[in-house]
Every structure is written in structure tokens, then in C-alpha cells.
């Protein structure tokens, strides 16, 4: 007779001293771990619920401006510095870690229309309603010394937008024309116009640095090459675009914030129809800024909310609002991809988390693992109706909620009408237009 019985030595399974960690022998046999999918599903559901519970995006409010905040600028080398310009011509420099204003400059008379930090981070430019472009040093002057710009350029017309070249000492402004300036000169080295009275925004392409795009008041978006004397091409849409932002990673894409409540992502090479129409706002979209990863962007709207969109989806993944926040005029995504800053009409700058449920601060290894695992679970089960319902739910202020409902009714009515028209006309006479095709009027080269 040959016999062997299971006889375990407890020393193999119990820790030696209480200072050790517990031993956990594993056996990955699927039959010992039944209900794999239902258990994972339950975990995913819990993770989704927890995410909603822990979603506390609002971090801080930076107050100090005495009029509505009109523009903001990220510092190009320092993560903790933010600049903001108000409607009374005041420029403030903020320290974001301390939630503190470190410097105040009375820069302009009237609105500060735009600000940009030079790529080296030593100085910044501001433009205002007083037709001036001012260059300021990033360093605050000594005690008792008056704030003086390094350089002041008096322009002929009012400027509305400003952007700086990525590497060179040139910058672009827009107003009646789109002007390219050399930092050393007081007259523009180049001026573009294409039969338009005014432009609202101009932006340099972050990769193809000689390219720039601007939003014009005749509902068009115009593309330029700085090296040429004439604009490249433009796309005319049904409504005016307020601002645009280039995707920093795939720099042939840009997204424009439109007056018709939507945002449009275009491929620069193919303007005939936008790549994606992003729709969720219920009022004009005023500003847009891409995340440094290029996968998401944030938009500010007149409907007193900001929204975060993944670059390829039609609907937002997140909406931020507070009771006190009024029309949001400007918004920026921080360069470390963690925060979003919004400046609004009621004189405050708000600091938000880019990912509402993310835990800030240093995470332990196990916390990181758990977060990654939960993230993966949420991804895996995102299409299950119960999970989806919880993940999608956002509380909305009443005005946004009712208006959104109204818009769906209107959209449905329009669709119904179109369907009826199509039904009673010759087949093919009323073409089927997708949402992407509806908003482009023409492309001019």
C-alpha cells in the first residue's frame, strides 16, 4: 500500500513573527474563484458609485479682482503661476499653490483683452482696449518702485486677441487685422485681412510654429502661414466662433468655441466638415483650452458652466458649476494635466480638478494599484446600463437642466419637420445631412 495524505505544515502558511506581513498563498484556479464576471461587475459598480461619491472637483476660488475676469494666461515654465486680466485693466499674478495674489498691475485703461507669457517665461505681454500692447517683466519690481512695462506699443486700432510664437521673438495680435509683430519693432511686420472687419482670437500652432489660425466676425475661421503674405484658407460656418485652441499633440486638429452652443473640432487639412461636433452647452461657448495630453479639452460657456470633453466624443464627460459662478469667460487647463482654471464674470478665478474624483497628493503604492484596477473595471463595464446610469449622472442647475430639455425638444421638432419634408418631396431632393455637415457654409481657399 502506498498512501499520501494532505498534511500541511502550518509554518508554510502562517507568518513567523507578528512583524512580518501575513502570508497569502494564491491559487488562480478558476474553479476556486467562481463568479468571476458577476463579482467583477459588482466591483465595477462599487467603483463607479465611489467615484461619484468622491467627485469633489472644486478646489479653490481666487478672489481679488475688482471687475470681471476677462482673460488668463498660463506661465510657460512655472506650474504654480497664473496671470489674469480683468475688465478694469488690472492684471494679477497668482500663486496657485498658496491660492494667493502675488502681484497686481494696473496695466490698461478699459478691458485687458489678452495676455500671453513669452516662451522663456521671463516676461509677458498684455493688450487692452486702450490700443496698446505692453510687455511686462515677470519679476516684480522692488519695494516702492512703480510697475512699469518694459515696452509699450501703441497700435492704430483696438486689439482683441494675442498669442506668442513658440520659439521666436514674434507675436500675433488680432483686431481689425491679424498682425504679426517682431518684439524689437513697434510696427507689425505683417498684416493679414480677408475682407473682414474684426477678429476675435488668434492662436499659433504649437507644432507647425509658423502657422496660425484666427476667428473672424464674419463667422469664419482663417488659417495663415506667417511666412506668406496672404492667408491660406478659411472655413465659413453658420455662426461665429469665439475662440479656438490647437490640439498640442495632434496639431493638425483645432477646436473652436462657437456661438451656436457647440464646439467644433476641425482637421486643418480638411475643413469641409468638422471631425466632431461637441454639443452639450446650452448657451454660447466663450473659451476653450486643450489639455497638454491633447486627449481632452475644457470649454467655458455663457451658461455659467464649464465642461470637459474627450477630443473625439460628441458629449462632455464632465460639467462643473457652482451656485455663485456666473458667465465663464475664460478657461485654462494646467500644464501638469491635473487642474482646470476658470475665470468668470463675478470677479473670481476658480481652481478645479481636471478629474473630479482623483485623489490629490502622494499616493501609496497600494492606493495607486487600487485606483488603476478600479479605473480598468469602470472601463470594462462602462456600457452596462446600471454602471452607465451612475457614471453619467450629473447634477445640473435648474436653468441648464430646463434649457437642455428645451433644446432636445427643439431638435426633435426640427428633425421631425425635416423628415416630413423629405417624405413629401421627390426622393433625393432633400439630402440627408449629418450633424457635422450642417454647420459648414463654405470653404474658401
Amino acid at each position, binding site marked *: 500500500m*502506498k498512501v*499520501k495524505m494532505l*498534511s500541511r505544515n502550518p509554518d508554510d502558511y*502562517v507568518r513567523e513573527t507578528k512583524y512580518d506581513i*501575513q502570508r497569502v498563498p494564491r*491559487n488562480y484556479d478558476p*474553479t476556486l474563484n467562481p463568479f468571476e464576471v458577476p463579482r*467583477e461587475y*459588482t466591483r465595477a459598480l462599487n467603483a463607479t458609485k465611489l467615484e461619484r461619491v468622491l467627485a469633489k472637483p472644486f478646489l479653490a476660488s481666487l478672489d481679488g479682482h475688482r471687475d470681471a475676469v476677462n482673460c488668463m494666461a498660463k506661465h510657460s515654465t512655472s506650474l504654480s503661476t497664473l496671470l489674469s486680466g480683468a475688465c478694469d485693466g488690472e492684471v494679477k499674478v497668482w500663486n496657485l499653490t498658496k491660492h494667493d495674489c502675488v502681484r497686481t498691475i494696473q496695466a490698461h485703461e478699459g478691458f485687458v483683452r489678452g495676455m500671453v507669457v513669452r516662451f522663456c517665461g521671463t516676461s509677458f505681454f498684455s493688450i487692452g482696449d486702450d490700443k496698446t500692447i505692453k510687455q511686462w517683466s515677470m519679476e516684480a519690481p522692488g519695494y516702492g518702485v512703480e510697475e512699469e512695462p518694459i515696452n509699450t506699443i501703441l497700435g492704430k486700432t483696438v486689439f482683441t486677441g494675442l498669442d506668442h510664437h513658440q520659439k521666436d521673438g514674434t507675436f500675433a495680435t488680432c483686431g481689425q487685422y491679424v498682425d504679426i509683430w517682431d518684439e524689437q519693432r513697434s510696427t507689425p511686420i505683417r498684416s493679414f485681412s480677408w475682407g473682414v472687419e474684426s477678429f476675435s482670437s488668434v492662436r499659433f500652432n504649437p507644432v507647425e510654429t509658423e502657422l496660425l489660425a484666427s476667428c473672424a466676425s464674419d463667422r469664419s475661421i482663417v488659417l495663415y502661414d506667417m511666412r506668406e503674405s496672404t492667408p491660406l484658407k478659411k472655413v465659413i460656418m453658420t455662426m461665429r466662433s469665439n475662440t479656438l485652441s490647437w490640439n498640442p499633440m495632434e496639431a493638425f486638429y483645432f477646436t473652436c468655441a462657437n456661438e451656436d452652443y457647440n464646439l467644433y473640432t476641425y482637421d486643418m487639412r480638411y475643413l469641409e466638415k468638422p471631425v466632431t461636433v461637441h454639443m452639450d452647452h446650452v448657451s454660447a461657448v466663450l473659451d476653450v483650452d486643450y489639455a497638454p495630453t491633447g486627449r481632452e479639452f475644457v470649454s467655458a460657456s455663457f451658461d455659467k458652466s464649464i465642461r470637459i470633453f474627450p477630443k473625439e466624443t460628441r458629449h462632455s464627460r464632465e460639467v462643473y458649476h457652482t451656485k455663485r459662478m456666473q458667465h465663464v469667460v475664460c478657461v485654462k487647463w494646467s500644464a501638469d494635466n491635473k487642474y482646470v482654471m476658470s475665470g468668470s464674470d463675478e470677479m473670481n478665478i476658480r481652481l478645479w480638478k481636471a478629474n473630479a474624483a482623483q485623489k490629490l497628493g502622494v499616493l501609496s503604492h497600494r492606493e495607486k494599484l487600487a485606483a488603476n484596477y478600479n479605473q480598468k473595471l469602470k472601463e470594462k463595464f462602462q456600457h452596462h446600463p446600471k454602471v452607465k446610469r451612475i457614471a453619467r449622472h450629473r447634477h445640473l442647475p435648474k436653468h441648464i437642466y430646463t434649457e437642455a430639455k428645451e433644446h432636445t425638444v427643439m431638435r426633435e421638432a426640427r428633425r421631425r419637420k425635416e423628415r416630413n419634408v423629405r417624405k413629401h418631396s421627390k426622393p433625393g431632393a432633400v439630402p440627408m445631412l449629418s450633424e457635422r455637415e450642417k454647420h459648414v457654409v463654405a470653404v474658401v481657399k
Partner: protein
Amino acid sequence: MASAEEASKRTHVEKKKKVSERYWQGSGEENKDEHRSGADVLGDQQPQQGSQTKHQISSSTKKKKRKPEGSHGMKAVTRVDPFPGSAPVPEEKRLKFRRKMKIDQLPHHLTKIRRVVASSQAASEITENESARYDQLLLLEDAGYLEGDEDEDTCTISQEDIADAVDITAGAKYFNLNLSQFGPYRLDYSKTGRQLLLGGKRGHVACLDWQTKQLMCEINVMETVNDVKWLHSEAMYAVAQKKWLYIYDSSGIELHCIRKFNDVLRMQFLPYHFLLATASATGFLQYLDVSVGKEVAAVGTKAGRLDVMCQNPQNAVIHLGHSNGTVTLWSPNQKEALVKMLCHQGGVRSLAVDKTGTYMVTSGMDKKLKVFDIRTFKPFQSYFLPAGASSLALSHRGLLSAATGDIVQVYRDVWNTPVKKPYMAHKVHGAVWGLHFCPFEDVLGVGHGDGFTSMLVPGAGEPNFDGLDSNPYRSAKQRQEWEVKALLEKIQPELITLDPGKLGQVDYATFEQRHQDKVKALGYDPLAKDKFKPRLRKKGRSSTGGVERRKNQVAHEDQREVIMATLKEKAETEKEREQKKNNNKETAAVKRSALDRFKKRNAQ
């Protein structure tokens, strides 16, 4: 020159010892003794070296033309890793961990989904490999076994002999408890296998740590005890008494008396759902959620007294055996049975489902023992036991124990090959009332009229437990941690279905429905393929004829699909019609009797 070289080559070939083929160099018999090849590498090099140096001496003039492979002296040797890559994992090991999620052939235009699917499949392949490798190398224990000498039946080996032959700790697991006063006994082992719960018919309830023989509590409930069951941990257990269901804690204090659950005969605990399923004498199958203390469902089975019950550990479906020979499968979500199978002529006496949820073993009043595949509900084997089996139990490693009167027999591998002889047998005092294999131990607990016997069954228990699931050696802290985790991932009773993996599969039906709704709302099909419009080619290459030709090519392709679909449909209808015809013929031929002519035609 050429001739000289040829000659030298020939000598070289003759002298050189052929290097034995390695398993990584391709298929061959070498694969079988791959563990030896490591040693071969060292052993082989010596003679080879010797032969080559000899050769060098003999043909020193041709040294320059030789390739560097032979020159060991001054030049650096390029060493090749004899075991490149990671060690191979046998396919059958990997098969054990394979998830059936292979999706092949997604349409080409679904680029994004294809990418996601591809990456997830790659990831699952990695886990499959890693788990298989872990399984192969890092598991601590081996399973037990019992082999007889030549012409010695293992079933003739007595328990005492086994207990003597094995080490002391294992031998101590064979013991008898003489409890003749309150018997016969039902029993239950906790999920980790450390604690044993005994319930005597006449009211004696005791729980003990059976390995240390430490009594945790002992009470007499002064009432008939029909069944006992541990709940999720060893802190609580349920006792089905004469009238109601009671829950006690491990020190014997009555925690709850649940009056909604009356006349309970049998109980099953579903550990991942925290559900206690009870079958009562009034024919009700009830589910109690022990985490919140609520009755989840009460199903009237309309099948009379329910005293045969077991659960499928893979999908938490409750199997009930009835006196008319049927076995019914139940989930709490449905008032009707999920499946009804006729298994025996005469009543069903006992049921057991194996750990993988593949096989069900039943025994009936017709003295038969049958094995069914419960994925397809088809019978596998049928055995005739002269005395009939009153209770059955299956171990983790698939040993079947059947109690016939006062003899406990253990069978090995009943589903694959027809079994002639039992693997083990043991006679106890008094009729067997309860059978239960201890999880993760080679022990079979037998409750009988004269108390309790702990039997040694080598090879019954799963040797390697999963520490995160049920750890027999867990500390109090670990148990608390586990309890919180287990409660957090408690599966809702709505998810109990025949196929628990269904939740992870694509729901085509709902998609179809939603798509139809969308088509209705929009007035057109947004997913419909546009009609092919030939691209306008410039420089006169888009002649009318050319355009037509291109259109025709595609039209042909489109048509082919339509034609295929219609052909398929036609073939199916044809088949159906033929079948119907045949059926009609058969019925007409078989059942036509002389009196049929008086039947009304419509009544048929």
C-alpha cells in the same frame, strides 16, 4: 586545393560528434527530456572541444579560413543562450485558465474596437500564461493518493491501516465521536474547512474546531433539528429546527429566530451571494439574504415535500430532487423552475454537483446512480447500486462518496469511465445521515446514527487553497478583512442565472431593439450602407463606360450578399418543410388507428 579541402571536410564530418538536438530547435523527441538538456550542455562541450582542437592541429595551414566557431583559445566565444525566452508552458495547463472570449473577425471598419479587443486579448493571453506558469511551478502542495499493492483492492484497506501508515497529524484526522443519544447527525464544514458543525436529529447541536478537537459550543435546542449550515464565516450558523429557522453564533447564543422560514428540511448557503436557500416540507424554496436579514424570494415549487437539495457552486443555481424522479433547477428570480429533468424512475434520494459545475450525480429510489452533464442536461453514466445510495457528496477533486445503508463508499472519476469498484469503503455504526467532504483536506465527514466519523480519503481535497478566497490558516484580522471585502462584492441575487458569464458578453438582442427604435425615430437607418458612388476620376479617366463597369463590380458584390441570404433562407424553409412532412408521415403511419376515421379533421 579543392580536393584537399574536401578531404579535410570529410574527416571533419566523421570526427565531429553531432550535437544532440534541443527542444527549442524544433519539434522532436528531445522535448520529452528537456530537463536533462541543461546538463547535456556542459557534458557535450568537452568532447566537441577535444575533437576540434585535434582538427586544428591536423590542418593548421587552413586555420585562417576556418570560421570562428571552432577557435576557443584567443578569440571571444559568442555564447548563445541555451534556453532563449521564458520557459514553455504546457498547453493543457494554459487551457485551464483560458477565458472563452476569443473574438475573431471583427469587421474591418471598426478600427477602434478592433484595437481594444486585440489589446484585451493580448492581456488575457499574458495572464493565462502567467497563471499557468504559477500553477506549474509555485503551488506548494501535492494532492494525496492511495495505491494498493499488486492485486490489492484499495477499497479493502481499512481506515486504521491508513491512519497508521500516514504521519501523525494526518492520522489524527481519523476519529469517531460516539454520540448515540441524540443521533442521527447531519453535519457541515465551514468554507475554510477548519470548523465542523454537527446537528443531531434529537436536538443536539455542536460546533468544533475538528483538527484541534476544540469544542466551540454545544447546545441542545430541545427540538427536532432537520439541518445545520454554516453561514459565510465561522461566527454564525443556521439551524433548521422543527418549526422555524434559527441562527446561532459560534458560542451558541441564539441570534435570530426567523418565523418566515417554517418547516425547513434542507439548507444551502450561497457564499458569494450571502444567501441562505431553504427547502421546506410545505414545498417552498426560500432565500434569506443573511447580510441584511431579508427574505429575497420565496418560490412555491408545488412539488410537495422538499428534502433533497444541493447547489451548483459555479452558478449558484439550486437543484431540488423530487419524489417523482425529477430534478428541478431554481434561481430566486423566477417563479418557475429553470430546468426540469426526469432523472429517475421513482423518487430522487440525493444529489450532488461537482466543483466545476459540469456534472451532477443523482441517486434514486430505483437504486441507480446517474451522472449528468448539466451544461447540456444529458446523462453520462448510469450505475446500479444494489442497496441504493441514500446520500451523496462530491469532493473538490471529484471523488464521489455514496452512503448505502451504513456503508460509505468512495468512487473515483465516475463521469469519464464506467467505474467497477469503489476506491474506498468504510462501515460505520448506524445508518448514514449526512455526508460532507472537508474542503482542502483529505477528509470525509460522516454523520450517522451513532455519532460522527471523520474518514480519511486520500486525494479528496484540493491541496492548494486560494488565500484570498478561503484561507484555513487566516488570522482574526485577515478574516475581518476578508469579510469586509466579501460583503462589498456581494453578488446581487438578480445575477443568478444558468450562465454567470453572460454578464460579460455582448448583448446583441438589446442592441437590435434599440437600433430598430432609432430607425423608427429617425426615419432612416443610420447604419445603413450608402449606395456605392464611384469616385470621379480626373483627366478623362472617368468615362461613362468605366463608371458603369465600376458600379457593376460593386453591385455584383452587394448582390452576392443578398443572394446568399435568400438562398440560406430558402434552404432552411425547405428543410423545415421536409421535416414537417416526414413528421406528418411518421405520425400518420404510426398513430393511425382504425378509430381515427371518426375523428374530426380540425381536431387534429
